[in-house]
């Protein structure tokens, strides 16, 4: 009898270990499933809403446009983006809105750096270029200057223009960036003819950082 009990103990321990292993494996698999489902699902949704894809956006250098923004037939990603940003965009049938959050090298626009925005063309229709902070708010500055448009911009003789994004005053078309942190440039074109296609959008070059 004593011998039988002694021989059952390792077997029982092995069964217990196997059961425990199976339970832990099951819990691990459930965790893996939940992790992939939640992180993958929410992460990919966030990416499609914030960054977009070729299905929902048009890109030209650092400029990104969501053509369906504001339209009643907008896809779910564009619709979610518009609500998330809280803007009231004019329908893409009349206006094309381009956003730039990086310079031409792909680095994030930031108020600690100075930039030159150089544009050519943009001769047709009404357009405006504005700078905002990361939440879409205008940046407070003593000059109360937040944008230039096709009427207020100073052009060169060849029709080109240069806008300076800088914290301190600059000659010409200066847009103050203050201490806003991350910046967003928005170029809105109303019935701009060829300009709607993305050709001739301004280049954004970093000048210096502090």
């Amino acid at each position, binding site marked *: 009898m004593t011998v039988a009990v002694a021989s059952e103990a390792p077997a029982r321990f092995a069964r217990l270990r196997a059961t425990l292993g199976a339970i832990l494996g099951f819990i691990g698999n459930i965790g893996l*499933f939940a992790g992939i489902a939640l992180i993958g699902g929410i992460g990919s949704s966030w990416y499609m809403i914030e960054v977009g894809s070729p299905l929902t956006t048009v890109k030209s250098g650092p400029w990104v446009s969501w053509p369906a923004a504001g339209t009643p037939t907008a896809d779910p990603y564009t619709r979610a983006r518009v609500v998330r940003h809280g803007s009231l965009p004019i329908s893409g049938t009349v206006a094309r809105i381009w956003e730039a959050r990086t310079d031409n090298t792909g680095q994030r626009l930031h108020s600690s750096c100075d930039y030159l925005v150089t544009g050519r063309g943009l001769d047709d229709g009404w357009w405006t270029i504005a700078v905002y902070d990361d939440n879409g708010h205008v940046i407070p500055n003593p000059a109360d200057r937040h944008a230039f448009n096709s009427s*207020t911009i100073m052009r060169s003789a060849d029709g080109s223009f240069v806008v300076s994004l800088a914290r301190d005053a600059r000659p010409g078309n200066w847009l103050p960036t203050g201490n806003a942190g991350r910046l967003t440039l928005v170029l809105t074109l109303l019935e701009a003819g060829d300009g709607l296609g993305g050709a001739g959008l301004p280049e954004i070059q970093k000048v210096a950082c502090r």
Partner: protein
Amino acid sequence: MSYGWRTGGLGTALLCGVVGAGIVHIVATFATPGLLRPNTYDRITEHLPANTLVVLGQPEADSQLIPYQEPDMQIAVCHYDVSGGPVSARVVLPSSGWTLALYSPAGDNFYVMPGRDQRVTMVNALLMLHQNEDAALPLSAGQTARNAPTYIDVPEPTGLMVIRGPVKGESYKDEVANILARASCGPAPNRLQSSSAG
């Protein structure tokens, strides 16, 4: 045996995780507009009386109601409500850059009228629900088919009418403000008469 079970479980978990991620992706995307309340429409209508045009002017850093609002445009907003009858909207769009845009509570810009250069665009519109089109108002005295209002179907009883006026320089501010101040949004005249008669 145990190793094989775990391998099978891992594969199943990965596969189910990918399928689950797809479901979560779809649910999160479609749920985002509903979850982000109050939205822009809620925030704006909280401050505006119904069927009254309010000139908000240009955005300022400490009082910007609409994110990404064009800084060099003055705007006027009307929170229209056609549940009691048609709403009349009148505005002059003197040049390019001017727009009249109608938005549903979900933020859809279902109607937009841009201004044109070298042509003054007069907008005289009656906003009404599609199902109420049969109740279109008859021409009143002195009104001809030429100056009769344009009927605009609105998808929902309430929404926003936004008029944007471009400020083409400091000297244009007052002119833009005056044009916006002359615009109107309110119950259609015949509706006013019938309600006062009742």
